[in-house]
């Protein structure tokens, strides 16, 4: 269900400028700033395990936002997002290893290279819709996977590529604590850019193409151009996310970028909320924490029943199965994603105790 108005009641704007702020209410802006400040303090208090999860949320969240712009906002489908994520990881490592480009610079350059690749793959995809597009992007996943395993000069072939840690003024930022800030900075910047994009000309054009392409066309929007552009932008986000992933792990190998990860990216945006920037983050958090929670549940069961070898050996499958199950359950029961549920809860408390 679509809510009938985008602004809560009791909000009045007296100038066009006040009407164009990112946040609908000052409170939601303050909450967001508070969230960033809290996140910035995280390395001081959190264990390395939790910090590693937050870093994962960071680089996957960036890539997922790109996919949400493509799938949620423009209405195209992609089953190959993981391959572009992987390309970004390899590209940044390659730029750094081969040309000595500093990592802080090779990350955005890898984003640009992935954008160009995305535009290239977007050319045929921009002319396709529905099932045909799904198959075409499925093919791009496998074409790129094959490329990763063959292009020794670029990826190190089957043995993979080393990726150096970030260094600043010759000083290596090693360890999770400092890398966390690199990821956090990228996450904040990429999410602000994404939000801005979606409230300006080209972002509106994406949504117009999704909602009613015939009308979009008579409004002067070149459908093919915007479908291809959306692929390019989504690839940029995938490339940045992938590059961060590579330099975080220190090692890039094609095995990390299979169709399974592409499905997980789709899961993040379905669970979070199609076309929603904040929903993307919620979905990513959910998707990163779910396998951890599954593992916790399994070990809790084992704690009660004693060790069951079958359960231990099946853990990897159980994790995958819960991901699939979560996606299916959300599609059935909460197709608008967590962000929709969040809005309902918020409006409930806003009107409390007169919620009905």
């Amino acid at each position, binding site marked *: 269900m*679509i*809510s*009938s*108005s*985008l*602004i809560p009641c009791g909000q009045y704007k007296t100038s*066009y*400028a006040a*009407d*164009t702020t990112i946040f609908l209410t000052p409170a939601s802006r303050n909450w967001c700033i508070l969230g960033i400040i809290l996140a910035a303090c995280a390395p001081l208090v959190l264990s390395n395990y939790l910090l590693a999860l937050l870093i994962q949320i960071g680089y996957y969240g960036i890539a997922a936002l790109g996919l949400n712009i493509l799938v949620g906002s423009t209405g195209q489908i992609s089953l190959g997002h993981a391959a572009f994520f992987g390309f970004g990881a390899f590209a940044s490592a390659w730029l750094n290893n081969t040309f000595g480009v500093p990592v802080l610079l090779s990350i955005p350059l890898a984003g640009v290279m992935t954008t160009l690749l995305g535009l290239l793959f977007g050319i045929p995809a921009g002319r396709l819709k529905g099932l045909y597009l799904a198959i075409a992007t499925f093919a791009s996943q496998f074409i790129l996977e094959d490329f990763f395993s063959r292009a020794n000069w670029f990826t190190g072939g089957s043995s993979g590529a080393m990726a150096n840690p970030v260094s600043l003024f010759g000083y290596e930022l090693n360890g999770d604590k400092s890398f966390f800030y690199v990821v956090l900075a990228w996450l904040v910047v990429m999410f602000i*850019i*994404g939000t*801005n*994009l979606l*409230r*300006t*000309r*080209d*972002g*509106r*054009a994406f*949504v*117009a193409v999704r*909602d*009613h392409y*015939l*009308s*979009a*066309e*008579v*409004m*002067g*929007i*070149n*459908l093919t151009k915007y479908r291809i*552009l959306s692929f390019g*932008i989504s690839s940029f986000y995938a490339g940045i996310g992938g590059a961060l992933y590579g330099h975080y792990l220190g090692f890039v190998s094609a095995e990390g970028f299979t169709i399974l990860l592409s499905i997980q990216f789709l899961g993040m945006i379905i669970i979070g909320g199609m*076309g929603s920037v904040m929903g993307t983050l919620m979905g990513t958090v959910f998707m990163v924490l779910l396998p951890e929670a599954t593992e916790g549940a399994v070990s809790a069961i084992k704690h009660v029943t004693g060790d069951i070898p079958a359960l231990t050996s099946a853990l990897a499958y159980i994790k995958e199965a819960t991901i699939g199950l979560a996606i299916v359950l959300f599609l059935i029961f909460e197709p608008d994603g967590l962000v929709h549920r969040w809005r309902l809860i918020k409006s409930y408390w806003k009107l409390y105790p007169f919620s009905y």
Partner: protein
Amino acid sequence: MSVENTPVLEVRDVSLGFGGVRALSEVSFEVKRGELFSIIGPNGAGKTSMLNCISGRYKPTSGRVYLDGRDVTGLTPNIRATLGMGRTFQNLALFGHMSVLDNIMVGRHHLLNNNALTGGLYWLSGARKEELSHRRKVEDIIDFLEIAHIRKAVAGTLPYGLRKRVELARAMAVEPKIILLDEPMAGMNLEEKEDMARYIVDLNEEWGMTVVMIEHDMGVVMDISQRVMVLEFGRKIAEGLPAEVMENERVKVAYLGIDDDEPAEAGSAA
């Protein structure tokens, strides 16, 4: 190029076929600057097909379309929009998940310069300033059509009559040289129809907009149009002042279903 007396729109010998069906057969007409021109005809006469040939959704099998003296026959709809064509659809065609304001802002697409990069950088690139500067024009349109109260509403949740009005607003935001309206009053109640007729007349007279309108309600058509063209089975059977067209024998027979023997009831329809 836009000399005062070149017609804003010229359709020359346009034919359109779908397999065996001849939707249009060698239709020609001109629309002058500032005119309110109506196309009428029975269901399936080819009115929407004509509009689609003008806006570029369909390519005519033969014949040409000129906008402001320029041959646009081979151009895509989005290019025709940037050259100055706006249109609404017979069936609702809003961007359902966007706010009313954003729907109308999409109409500004070809007038805005910011892009994915500058839009993303918003404050740094001047995109914010540009977006705000276009709000003035959009708010004028919103005021004119009296939709200020639903400015932030999600378009897909609005009642039918309001959606039609938002669609008109969106087409106006394109700032076209000519605006094509496909049954802007279909499915409306009397009050909504009167409102819409008034908006169209004001749009034509006060805003100086050239309008081509398809409409079934003969009363409205005869009241507000300056000239009328009648289509039947894809052919033009009459064109002229409303009164002339009403008196045309072929129109009476073909469109109004009135036989020569029966007393003419044209007066009551007008």
